[in-house]
């Protein structure tokens, strides 16, 4: 049985995948930047800021991403802000995953043994220098696997923007199904494309995890 409907629409789906990658890249960059800043704040900042960060993480952990996407697309027009839909998607997903990234980075920094801090301070290094040449290079290696895994979750989450009307792989899939009335084929194809992207990321993450075991 040749999946004719899928083959005919595969290129269309791939174009949708391009948008998925575009959305994902933008969101990854944003969430990494937010995550790094917030993670540092959470680890070293003054108490009131740390509480704010914990509130941020609490909210993101407890509220579905879809609700936030709805909030953005339905509420913002009322407040007068008219945002380009793609940019809006990147901002919401970036802000959402920023919280998860912050936890990844904070955990990585805190996982380093206190003795490394002792050694750095004992040599007369101050916090910024110690972070730059001793802590971050080591934390980076520790953070790499969960970072890649979070990126993978982010890519999967981009499928949600199809519900608020943004065009990407999942939306392309729905349109193709309406055209061809072959949902099994088309969505299997959509799943396959997501699988290729996410499996690569997941494998890379596992590879990074294995490499870590050799260093320490």
């Amino acid at each position: 049985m040749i999946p004719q409907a899928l083959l005919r629409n595969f290129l269309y789906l791939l174009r949708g995948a391009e948008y998925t990658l575009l959305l994902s890249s933008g969101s990854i960059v944003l969430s990494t930047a937010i995550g790094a800043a917030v993670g540092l704040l959470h680890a070293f900042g003054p108490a009131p800021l740390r509480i704010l960060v914990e509130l941020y993480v609490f909210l993101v952990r407890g509220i579905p991403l879809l609700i936030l996407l709805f909030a953005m697309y339905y509420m913002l027009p009322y407040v007068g802000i008219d945002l380009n839909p793609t940019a809006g998607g990147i901002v919401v997903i970036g802000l959402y995953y920023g919280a998860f990234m912050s936890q990844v980075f904070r955990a990585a920094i805190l996982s380093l043994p206190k003795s490394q801090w002792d050694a750095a301070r004992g040599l007369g290094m101050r916090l910024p220098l110690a972070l730059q040449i001793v802590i971050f290079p080591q934390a980076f290696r520790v953070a790499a696997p969960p970072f890649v895994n979070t990126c993978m979750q982010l890519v999967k989450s981009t499928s949600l923007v199809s519900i608020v009307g943004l065009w990407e792989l999942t939306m392309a899939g729905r349109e193709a199904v309406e055209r061809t009335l072959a949902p099994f084929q088309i969505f299997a194809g959509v799943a396959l494309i997501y699988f290729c992207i996410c499996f690569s990321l997941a494998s890379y993450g596992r590879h990074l995890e294995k490499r870590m075991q050799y260093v320490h």
Partner: protein
Amino acid sequence: MPLDLNFILRNLPLFGKGLVVTVELSLLAILFAMVWGLVVAFGRMARARWLRTLAGAYIELVRDTPVLVQMYFIYFGFSMAGFGMSGFVSGLLALSLQNGGYIAEIYRAGIESISVKQVEGGKALGMSRWDVLSIVVLPQALVRVIPPLANQFIVIIKDTSLASAIAVADLTQIGKLLTERTAAAYEVFLTIAVLYLMMTGIVSGLSRLAERQFAIYH
């Protein structure tokens, strides 16, 4: 910003209906995922290599595809094939299948984290493989498994919101309808957010209680 509390109060029954559906879907998905996850975990840790590979491939498949796509696959696929599964059942199936995979890995990690020495100790005392599992390994694995399981339950609760895209009248769907009908987007969003936070908060709280209870036995 002025909050129209009356609006929220007036529509409480409607929110309540959506909340009930969300809770139902969440609880059933959690239950099925835990059971299915057990099955998959057994496959993953089986002696037969082909079983392990099959289970591994299954887990990889459900983990590397978005749950929304899985929901669409089941919902649109079966309705067009004539089976006509409701949105609720499709959503439940997709959530159970996907989270079953994640939970299987949680079970496996929990069991494998129990030091091999303990298993050897049990065997040395003459216990059968089954005895070792149930008396030595499982009770300890249980404690370690609570936090990641609670986490996964929270993920399930949040993912039920996706069922709103396949015509399930859950909390998110109610919110969407209300926002479209009235202009009170702000109140609707706030109420829904708070309700979700309550649900996930309860799970977190229960998880911490359970952890503490188990910690006493150590």
